[in-house]
């Protein structure tokens, strides 16, 4: 049990749905302290649960009673996080939804960003971006999509050059790799057509 590798959130459609529901409820009940709650939730997930997987196991375990779990949460978080967030964590324990906490946190963050008119955009480039490029890309995207762009950068040398931008499900591919792929299919079909149309002229004498 202890040497279980902490895994990146795999795509789990059901958890996503649950996450969206709870995140909406959390943001709705947060009132004025919504920004604190979102950042504290992020801290809870990244700094406590991810650092101490055994805590998460304990919270998810059916063998530990609800009172013990709530006591545990009180001792760890009381006074350190907003009381609403603490109650929220207790409810998650009570409902057996603590396993969806990561999905809830991710969705809550994106929902909060959306509400503030920000959009996450993944930018993949062959080489690390410099500040000027970063600013240019962010400005242009913000202007086109009429939103404040939050760039999430990734370096992938296989692109060879150019950038690939992903916004939600939409991908804008301006990379050399993508261009080369389309040139390849274009040339292959062009040559095939030429062979079909004027087969004789292509033969060596």
């Amino acid at each position, binding site marked *: 049990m202890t040497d279980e590798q902490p895994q990146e959130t795999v795509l789990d459609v059901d958890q*996503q749905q649950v996450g969206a529901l709870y995140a909406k409820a959390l943001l709705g009940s947060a009132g004025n302290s919504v920004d604190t709650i979102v950042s504290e939730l992020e801290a809870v997930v990244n700094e406590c649960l991810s650092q101490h997987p055994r805590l998460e196991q304990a919270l998810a375990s059916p063998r530990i009673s609800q009172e013990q779990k709530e006591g545990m949460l009180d001792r760890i978080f009381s006074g350190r996080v907003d009381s609403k967030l603490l109650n929220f964590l207790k409810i998650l324990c009570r409902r057996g939804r603590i396993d969806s906490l990561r999905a809830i946190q991710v969705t809550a963050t994106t929902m909060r960003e959306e509400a503030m008119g920000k959009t996450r955009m993944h930018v993949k480039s062959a080489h690390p971006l410099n500040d000027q490029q970063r600013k240019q890309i962010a400005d242009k995207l913000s202007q086109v999509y009429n939103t404040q762009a939050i760039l999430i950068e990734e370096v992938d040398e296989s692109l060879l050059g150019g950038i690939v931008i992903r916004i939600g499900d939409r*991908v804008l591919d301006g990379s050399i790799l993508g261009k080369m792929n389309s040139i390849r299919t274009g040339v292959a079909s062009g040559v095939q057509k030429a062979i*079909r149309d004027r087969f004789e002229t292509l033969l*060596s004498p």
Partner: protein
Amino acid sequence: MKFNSDEIASVIQKEIETFESQMDVREIGTVLEVSDGIARVYGLSGVMAGEMVQFPSGVIGLAFNLEENSVGIIILGDYLTINEGDEVKSLGRLLSVPVGDGIIGRVLDPLGNPLDGRGPVESTEQRPVEVIATGVSERQPVHEPLQTGIKAIDAMTPIGRGQRELIIGDRKTGKTAVALDAIINQKGTGVKCFYVAVGQKDSSVALVVETLRKYGAMDYTTVIVSGASTPAPLQYIAPYSGTAMAEHFMFNGGHALVVYDDLSKQAVAYRQLSLLMRRPPGREAYPGDVFYCHSRLLERSAKLSEALGGGSLTSLPIIETQEGEVSAYIPTNVISITDGQIYLQPDLFFKGIRPAMNAGISVSRVGGAAQIKAMKKVAGGLRLDLASFRELEAFAQLGTDLDPVTQARLDRGYRMVELLKQLQYQPMNVYDQVVSIYAATRGHMDDVAVENIADFESKLLAYMRDRKGDVMSKLEESKDLTQEVEDGIKAGIAEFKKGYKPS
């Protein structure tokens, strides 16, 4: 044979020079899971039902189920090359197949890729596989005949251009044979034929193609194959792509005939897909929309109005029943959709009555409108006579003494049944059919022994063609049994009978 590398290089260079680079904008999703022929994908939030998507291996899929958190994709190709986590790209197009003269004479898969090893399909036009059928104002009533060349069918259950006539029967009752004869008989009529093989053994399909080629029918026929080993999505889509290819000719004022062999296997493929997609099962575990699956397919057969060119698409769907059970789900559905059915029975088949058509329960709801006048005159009432003969025959087996009138009816019936037997791959010209059915129904064969009927018929027809060419050409001209033609035929039969000796 060797390519000139300089020439090829110049072609490549030209292609690269003319290549226009555009920013590639696409919508993507991620594969969550893959199972037999289907995949569930996360993302693709803007995809529309029926839209094409592409997997990294180049395999094409169709958006089939749009759910709250995922999209169900049916995979038209090798699903073993797809992995969890693969990026799926939506193409923003509907599935289309190549159409036009380039596909005639070819053996294709349901996506229009060649299977006959004769190079790529030379076609510039494409047509979407799923389209909404033409409406009421774009149609006209069926009135031209589509001759199958089979006496029993052309006389009793005539098929018109634009009609949908179901061929139904148990296994091994000659369903495919009827359809093949109908295709072979379209030679020289300008009707383009499409044979859609769904879920059949590849060996059977190879045999069909070979037969069509042998009888010269591949010059105007396209075979669309999705055999028993192809994944269910392709079997499901095959009839629609065959119809799309045939519709192209209909909308250009031509005539087409499409045979779906067979729709029960397509329904089974659709059931498999639907169950894997977790759509709720209904009767016989078929999904609720299996009726719509067949009705929207068969509704695309039409006789277009003159304003649209007057083209037609005739379809011959085939349904295989189990132990003669026509009241199973799929048979009743397709019976209710089509404009009539040809019911083939195993007991008739094994008695040697081939085609083994049961005249009593086979009908054509378009009926006489799809017959030439001459045939209408000689064959009117034939179906009912034959059906009442069957009853009488069963009664006569009790061994009771029969009055002469009944005996005469029985004798006529035996001769009719004998006459309607026809060998496979020997479709008959409609004017010959008129002459032989005239001879039998008007009693000119009553004095010929039952076992000599076939011999009598073939010799009579040869005689009429050789010696009475003028009568036959008049019949062909007027397509009607005028008094003059009738007298000519009658005289011809009388003359022939004088010299007839059974061989």
